[in-house]
């Protein structure tokens, strides 16, 4: 098993932390992992992205030009990364704010209404967990138990009281994900 993932969106959407939780879940699952962010002014807004690799073998390059899965959370990221998903790969995106939907016909495309659901739930902080839940429904690379364990390791102690809300959002994301029928 080897899964090469790009996660991209606005700074502040929890892109990097979603990647970190996914990577930590992989560690808990006994996998090899790498997490490499774009870093710099993006931290203050603008676009942020992170490449996460989960594998059962040693990872050579953490830097990649193409991905098995793209998880994109805004239009800029869709424009930037849609073409770097491998043929037959997976694209998961939040349609909120997307004016130009994906054009690829050789991908499995899924949507997750995470922004809408986060607003409805009144807890914007778990936005990225709806998305991660959706991804893990499509590709169950790690168990939800190991995600919780990953959260426990990646969150500071004082935030551990947030874990139940995160878990609920993960499970809700699993329910909300929809296969896009756009391209049949």
């Amino acid at each position, binding site marked *: 098993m080897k899964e090469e993932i790009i996660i991209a969106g606005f700074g502040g959407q929890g892109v990097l932390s979603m990647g970190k939780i996914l990577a930590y879940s992989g560690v808990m699952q006994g996998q090899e992992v790498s997490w*490499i962010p774009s870093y710099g002014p993006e931290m203050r807004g603008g676009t942020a992205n992170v490449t996460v690799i989960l594998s059962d073998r040693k990872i050579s390059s953490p*830097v990649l030009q193409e991905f098995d899965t793209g998880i994109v959370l805004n239009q800029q990221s869709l424009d930037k990364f849609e073409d770097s998903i491998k043929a037959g790969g997976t694209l998961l995106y939040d349609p909120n704010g997307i004016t130009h939907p994906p054009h690829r016909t050789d991908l499995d495309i899924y949507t997750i209404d995470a922004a809408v659901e986060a607003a409805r739930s009144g807890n914007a902080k778990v936005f990225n967990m709806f998305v991660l839940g959706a991804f893990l429904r499509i590709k169950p690379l790690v168990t939800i138990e190991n995600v919780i364990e990953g959260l426990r390791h*990646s969150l500071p102690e004082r935030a551990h009281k947030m874990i139940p809300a995160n878990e609920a959002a993960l499970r809700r994301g699993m329910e909300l994900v929809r296969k896009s029928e756009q391209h049949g």
Partner: protein
Amino acid sequence: MEDIKLMKGNEVLAHAAVRCGVDGYFGYPITPQSEVLETLSELRPWKTTGMVVLQAESEVASINMVYGGASVGKRVMTSTSSPGLSLMCEGLSYLAGAELPCVVIDVSRGGPGLGTIQASQADYFQVVKGGGHGDYRMPVLAPNSVQEMNDFVDLAFELAFKYLNPVVILADGVIGQMMEKVRLSPQKPRRTEAQIREECPWAALGKGSGPMQRKERNIVTSCYIDPETMERHNHKLQEKYDRMERDEVRVEEMETADAEYILVAYGASSRICAKVVEDARAEGLRVGLIRPITLFPFPAATIRRAAEHAKGFLSVELSMGQMIEDVRMAIGNAAMPVRHFGRTGGIIHSPREVYDALKQLMTETGGLQ
């Protein structure tokens, strides 16, 4: 489950420093290595091991604090990124001249000048060939994984005290900022004052008292006004650098035994090249990788050996081509194309870009029909 953590390379440097019993860290924040000082501040080792962590007013101050700590036999270190290392170069020359052990970490970024905060490998000349003035060399370790960011801190101190010389860990923004699994070293105690007196008979600790009392104070200096004395000192230093070249070469080879084309790369570029080797081998192409772990001493013999059956070399660095000079020198007069490939400005070359450059070299030299 084993105690495996997921951490950034920079965070690991800080943990490794505390765990290998460092006495003092002096640094000034600069991207992309600010997490070293941040993590040390969070770890508060002054409350546990008694390690000093001090944010200096500048890189010039940091390196001179390192000089002070090293003069009294302490295990001291600093970390910075490229423009900061430029400021430290005078200090590095003085440390080397005065034969003081210390560890300096450069998590390099794009230059020249203020450049960019993104990753780069354009400090090779500065770190490996000098930077400071005078005839001096420093062992240079080039980690290519988060685990090696842990392991090389301890190794760097071992070499520093073995040779009484500054040792540099030359990392880059990719290795500093990426997260991977890491097994941190066990906690070692800091050395006691008595141990330092015994292990560092050269340290400037005064005359002392009791049975250990000395007749004369040690003087730590790099200043030898008398030309004959200065030359003798240079010969002594050179003898030390020769020993490093003989005993301290570290290198990793991947698929080189039958390779017709050899990639040479260190740090982040060596990880990218490892994927190129995987991809090339999957297509049946005889491609290998030589990864210098020590940049000084440089693994020239390994490269020379590989050149005996190779058709061409591609040196891959995030620079306009610096290490390639050492690759060329290692190969010597053998009729062999040696090319450079590398992106700069903080752009990281993708495995595909490197593979394309390799295929072009192969096509031009008859290795690819």
